[in-house]
């Protein structure tokens, strides 16, 4: 545990740092109150993947997962950040164990908040069994922590999006913040096209990918609770709001979420494109949503989103 493990911030004012372009360490440095970040199992501990050398693949000293503690607006938080550029931010044995350990620690610290900076394509193929087990362990640890009163806030806006097991874990969070660049799903575009054919989903159609899995659509259908601009400042402000917004976890919350999903299916189940969903939500010119600037979109989303009714 040392304090001196952060990369230097990008040049320019903090508000100009793009969440999408920044590395995991740059995001943490700009998100938390400086210089409060204290890393657990830092890169000098060299807790690297035991599987990658078998495939002659390069290791990363933190295995693409940075965990630690810090302050956000003066409040103590535990944080985990995935590096989306290393192995697509994918979960492996060590990568996953670091998040499991953090959530188990959170369970035993009354009232603590956990921030997870997702940036992942899912499970690392080279350590698939260990990675799948890690996803299950993380979800269990997260639910146990939430039952003990921990608030878990997911922040999604990185290059890799939040796919595969990462999408499942995100679904277990108390609150999700997403930017336009963030994508949340389980099966990615290429996976769907490979399995169901190009008529089902054309992975090369970027506009289709973004309006089906992108941040704006997820925000409008309630898959994410708050929308942020792409700047680190915007994510910081949204994370502070999200912590206040997170509701205690209970069976009632789960029942409300189940009811919300059931209603979503009956209301939008026949739609064949996201724009039809947006029209059904009462948005007059749904074709204009993708080009809408952040502030206008937040106003729209706040007025048109489905009733929340204690779900999540």
């Amino acid at each position, binding site marked *: 545990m*040392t304090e*001196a*493990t*952060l*990369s*230097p*911030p990008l040049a320019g004012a903090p508000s100009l740092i793009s969440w999408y372009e920044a*590395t995991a*360490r740059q995001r943490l*440095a700009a998100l938390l109150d*400086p*210089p409060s970040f204290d890393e657990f199992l*830092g*890169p*000098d501990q060299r807790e690297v993947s035991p599987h990658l*050398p078998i495939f*002659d*693949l*390069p*290791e*990363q*000293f*933190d295995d693409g997962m940075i965990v630690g503690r810090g302050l956000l607006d003066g409040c103590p938080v535990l944080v985990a950040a995935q*590096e989306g*550029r*290393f192995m697509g931010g994918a979960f492996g044995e060590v990568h996953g164990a670091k998040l499991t350990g953090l959530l188990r620690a959170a369970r035993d610290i009354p009232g603590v908040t956990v921030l997870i900076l997702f940036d992942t394509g899912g499970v690392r193929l080279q350590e698939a069994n260990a990675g799948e087990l890690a996803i299950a362990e993380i979800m269990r640890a997260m639910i146990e922590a939430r039952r003990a009163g921990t608030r878990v806030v997911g922040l999604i806006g990185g290059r890799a999006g939040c796919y595969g097991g990462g999408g499942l874990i995100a679904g277990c969070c108390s609150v999700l913040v997403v930017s336009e660049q963030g994508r949340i799903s389980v099966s990615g575009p290429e996976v769907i096209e490979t399995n169901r054919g190009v008529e089902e989903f054309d992975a090369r159609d970027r506009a289709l990918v973004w309006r089906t899995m992108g941040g704006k659509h997820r925000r409008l259908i309630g898959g994410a609770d708050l929308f942020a601009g792409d700047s680190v400042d915007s994510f910081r402000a949204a994370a502070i709001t999200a912590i206040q917004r997170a509701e205690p976890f209970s069976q009632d919350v789960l029942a409300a979420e189940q009811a919300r999903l059931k209603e979503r299916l009956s209301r939008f189940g026949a739609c064949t494109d996201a724009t039809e969903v947006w029209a059904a939500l009462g948005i007059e010119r749904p074709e204009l949503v993708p080009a809408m600037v952040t502030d206008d979109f937040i106003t729209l989303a706040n007025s048109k989103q489905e009733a929340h009714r204690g779900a999540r």
Partner: protein
Amino acid sequence: MERLSFLHKAERRAGGRRPMAIVGVVASGNLEVLVERVLPSTECVVEIATTAHGFGEVWRAVVADFVERRSPGGLKFSINDGGARPDTVALRLAQGARTIEIDTL
């Protein structure tokens, strides 16, 4: 995986007091450099793990040039390489040396 190690004498101790810094990520055409202040102040070690085999002489030249320019005495550099080009390596080494010299970020 090819593993290379270069030991150099450095004229001066690297500035600053931070014990560690890390820059870069392991991705295609990129690399991470972990810098640790763990050596006597006139020594510099650069250890490399790379998947691109057979470029030992290029690494040797880039590292020698870096040590001559920056004199990073007392620092150990550990590199995980994702097939970065020599210019990228030189920039990351310089960035790592600069980062550990800055006491406050």
